[in-house]
């Protein structure tokens, strides 16, 4: 079974919020109606967003690192928000594992948002229904788009390619390889929700070079080494 998901590389994310704005732009313009805002230009603005980038400071000054942390629906393999829905408006697509809300069935009881430990469901105060990241379902399954564009808006917008998109059940996919080889992890693993989205951890990009590594002491092809010849060489031979 296919399980589409995002893999977000925290080592690469620079916290520019391009994924936030492109998400909002794409999803507020679609067939499902706007992601409504309330007082967008007023003193107390608020609105519906599927994706946010948060900042965390790790360590004690001056030895700190800033972690930019994009946060959207993780499309859990065991989504706790789905079984609690009384109407069946919340569902997980059997063909690609994307967790969605049927806005025409949702009664707006907000119970699913209580049942999500990650707080990634948003109640639209105007449409009065629960909304959430759809992984841009209207893009990724649209065969009229060229294949390179069948990706979520956030992935296409990311200037540093910190967001990878693919099938985490396919062991050879780009995302599976990234998870496997770069220490991909899930958020709040303690609840058994098995999030499909993974994060790649911060890792050191500096290497420490020891002096002996500069000379290839173990080189069997001694000719590659810089050799200072003494005595007679070919040039000295009189032809």
């Amino acid at each position: 079974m296919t399980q589409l998901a995002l893999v977000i590389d925290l080592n690469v994310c620079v916290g520019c919020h391009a994924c936030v704005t492109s998400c909002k732009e794409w999803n507020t313009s679609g067939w499902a109606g706007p992601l409504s805002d309330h007082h967008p230009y007023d003193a107390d603005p608020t609105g519906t967003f599927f994706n946010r980038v948060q900042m965390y400071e790790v360590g004690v000054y001056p030895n700190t690192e800033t972690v930019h942390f994009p946060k959207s629906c993780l499309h859990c393999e065991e989504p706790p928000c789905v079984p609690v829905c009384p109407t069946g408006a919340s569902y997980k697509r059997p063909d690609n594992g994307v967790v969605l809300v049927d806005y025409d069935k949702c009664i707006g009881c907000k119970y699913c948002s209580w049942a999500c430990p990650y707080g990634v469901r948003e109640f639209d105060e105007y449409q009065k229904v629960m909304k959430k990241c759809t992984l841009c379902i209207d893009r990724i399954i649209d065969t009229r788009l060229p294949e390179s564009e069948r990706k979520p808006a956030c992935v296409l917008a990311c200037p540093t390619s910190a967001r990878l998109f693919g099938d985490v059940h396919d062991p050879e996919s780009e995302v599976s390889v990234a998870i496997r080889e770069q220490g991909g992890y899930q958020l709040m693993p303690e609840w058994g929700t098995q999030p499909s989205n993974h994060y790649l951890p911060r890792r050191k990009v500096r290497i420490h070079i020891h002096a002996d590594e500069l000379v290839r002491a173990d080189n069997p092809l001694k000719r590659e080494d810089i050799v200072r010849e003494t005595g007679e060489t070919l040039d000295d031979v009189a032809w």
Partner: protein
Amino acid sequence: MHPAFSVIFLTTLIGVGQGLFLALFTGQIYDLATLLDVQLTPAFYSLGSLIALLFLVLGLVASFFHLGHPERAWRSIAQWRTSWLSREVLVLPLTLGLIALYGLFHFLGWTQPLFTLGEAVPVDATLIIGLAATLATFGLFLCTGMIYAGLKFLQEWHSPLTVVNFTLLGIASGFTLAAAISAWMNNGLLFFYGGWAVVAISLGLLGRGASLVRNGAIKHKSTLQSAIGVRHTRIQQKAMGFMGGSFNTREFFPGAGLPTLDRVRNGFLILAFPLPLILLAFSFLEQGPSILPLAAFGIQYLGLLAERWHFFAEARHPQNIYYQSVA
């Protein structure tokens, strides 16, 4: 969690209705076993059922204010296989219907024995309906409690105590109301219902006290480290990604500080338990019709509203970890 008044009224009002029905049916069972020295009148049964129905319907009305699309509420019966909320939506009208039938049969006097169990137990239609309604009532307590107790990462709620307390507090308020009706009708049942109310209130205090102690010492499984997956002892949020507030900052925070929570807790610990007990005790000393049990019920209900507010406000949702600093 942000305490929503619709849900506070829903859970407390249907609790009173369920408890009152259980009180009526307990009376009928005692009457059947001839353990009471007074007869329960059809007027008492039907009036009691009507009041129980009134509370249940008021609770149902309150619940609609919690919905974004009340006109679609009928859809919520669909997922009864997995959702306790869906089960509640099914069991609540069932309970309503059975209690209505129970009151109607008593009102119309259709209480001729259908058959006799053994030698001495005459079984009439109201007994059968009452038994079914009792099952439905306890089923409703279970569903309502499990809506909250079933959310495992809301650790303050994820405990059998949640279901037990919803049941005990509902029964306590229902029996207090039954005592109030009895005292007003002066039908000689004040001691019976008042006595059971004292027992139920005391058990409710034990159960709620136990949950307060449990929740005071709770160790939350989710931490900022597990939330963002960074292993470091010192992590600070510097920005939550927006400054204007959102659903995340409104729905999941109590909207009140710890001092307020403590004041509300102290308030309900006085209003819902000792004060009704004292008023009921005084009413036992009075002769003739008494208004004291009704006062006990009113004060107790105010206490239960505060209790339910605290129940919601006290629960700390793990998503709050992500929303600790605006900027």
